[in-house]
């Protein structure tokens, strides 16, 4: 085994509450609680789930040239993000593949970049290297801050009594500074209406010393702790990409269909390669798969048409919400159309699959924004 696993500030809580801990990106993380993964997915879809995602990385970019620096390193047009809004972006290599995918929070005096756990050190180093010529400071607050996610239709109702932020006024992919009500008074926090499950919900960022009291207050209010297992299923059902699976240092974001996070009209690291790729057309594309039967084509499962390899599964799981297997896959572009049929090679057994639209699941949006106004 390699280095000792790190723990989030809630690691001992998880262990004391029936979590099964697994290594993930250098952290010991709860994959599930005694509740079980299927029930945890149901709770997120129907009630309110609480996730400890303090393992994720967070960089704060400050200084006069912060917008220009982020625009140079990130694929999204950061200059056009309104203050208080959040956008998805990619950190690309000069070759147009992906170092990480991130969320960019444009504040008044700072830009917060939320990165994957695996990118905590690597992304910071990448920023420092590629934005060296800009007048900025980069603070890595990954260890100083806790990060929790509340996800599910009841999230706003459950969180509202515990914050002074009017949640009804906080729109999707917006954030605000505000107070969380801890047992010993207000805790300064950043609250965003974001998440990685396909449900309505919030992500909370606040000083790590308050992790346990805030977590316990949310549990006491009725939020159910949810592990990474259910989180991965929810994001797959919602057709959301995961770094290292749907994109990586060998898969371009255009192949992964992440065009919405890319502005090719402005210069950034990797842009020229992506422009060339776009002009030539990508050789393969990310699709959803409809799978016959109950066996699950999992990550790396080969896809074949006759004897010809045509792609591979990037994420596959059983979907408790849909009660069937679901998978995302990279397939050759000619086959990346809804209705195209080929086969998954499931450990030697062939199973018919058909290209399906993404996402597999999308929530019914409430007519009225929840949380009251």
């Amino acid at each position, binding site marked *: 085994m390699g280095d000792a696993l790190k723990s989030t500030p809630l690691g001992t809580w998880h262990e004391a509450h029936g979590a099964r801990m697994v290594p993930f990106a250098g952290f010991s993380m709860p*994959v*599930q609680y005694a509740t*079980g*993964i*299927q029930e945890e997915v149901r709770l997120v879809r129907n009630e309110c789930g609480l996730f400890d995602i303090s393992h994720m990385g967070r960089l704060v970019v400050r200084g006069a040239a912060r917008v220009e620096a982020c625009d140079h390193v990130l694929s999204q047009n950061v200059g056009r993000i309104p203050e208080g809004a959040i956008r998805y972006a990619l950190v690309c290599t000069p070759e147009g593949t992906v170092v990480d995918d991130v969320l960019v929070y444009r504040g008044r005096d700072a830009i917060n970049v939320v990165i994957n756990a695996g990118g905590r050190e690597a992304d910071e180093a990448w920023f420092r290297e590629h934005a060296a010529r800009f007048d900025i400071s980069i603070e890595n607050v990954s260890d100083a801050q806790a990060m929790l996610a509340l996800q599910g239709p009841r999230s706003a109702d459950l969180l509202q009594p515990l914050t002074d932020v009017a949640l009804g006024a906080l729109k999707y992919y917006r954030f605000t500074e505000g107070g969380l009500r801890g047992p010993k008074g207000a805790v300064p926090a950043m609250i965003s209406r974001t998440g990685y499950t396909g449900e309505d919900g919030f992500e909370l960022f606040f000083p790590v010393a308050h992790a346990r009291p805030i977590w316990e207050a949310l549990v006491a209010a009725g939020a159910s702790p949810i592990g990474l*297992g259910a989180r*991965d*299923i929810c994001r797959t059902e919602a057709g959301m990409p995961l770094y290292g699976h749907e994109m990586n240092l060998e898969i371009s974001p255009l192949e992964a269909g992440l065009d919405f996070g890319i502005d090719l009209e402005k210069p950034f690291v990797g842009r020229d390669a992506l422009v060339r790729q776009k002009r030539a057309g990508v050789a393969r594309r990310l699709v959803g798969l409809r799978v016959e039967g*109950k*066996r*699950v084509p*999992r990550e790396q499962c080969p896809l074949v048409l006759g004897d010809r390899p045509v792609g591979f599964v990037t994420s596959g*799981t*059983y979907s*408790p919400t849909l009660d069937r297997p679901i998978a995302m896959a990279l397939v050759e572009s000619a086959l990346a159309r809804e209705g195209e049929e080929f086969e998954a090679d499931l*450990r030697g057994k062939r199973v018919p699959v058909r290209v399906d639209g993404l996402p597999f699941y999308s929530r019914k949006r409430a007519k009225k924004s929840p949380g009251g106004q």
Partner: protein
Amino acid sequence: MNRPDGARFSKSHEWAVLKGDQLTLGITDFAVEHLGDIVFVDLPEAGRDVSAGDTVCEIESVKAVGEVYAPVSGTVTEVNRGLADDPAALASDPFGKGWLVRMRVGDASGYAALMDRASYEKHLETAGPG
């Protein structure tokens, strides 16, 4: 969970009971616990010949797939069809209603090499999950 005294156990968490030349095979409570929510059991056809170490069936849980290995060589004579409709029976009663396959055993020497219950429980104490 009551692990049956008369059963033998493998390091990969199968259990087996041999009566005459009939072997009944399943997976242990530890394996069930480790797999998590089971959604599908892919059983072999009766009549299939298997060699010791072959995968005889696959168990799909929400997050993983578990392979069940034949501890001995033989021919599959019967499979637990009930699990197709009710895979949860495997989780709730792995040593009873959750049996997987019955085999007619050719050479039973592999059976003697399996662990008895006490040895298996010692193995569980020292082995990590998986």
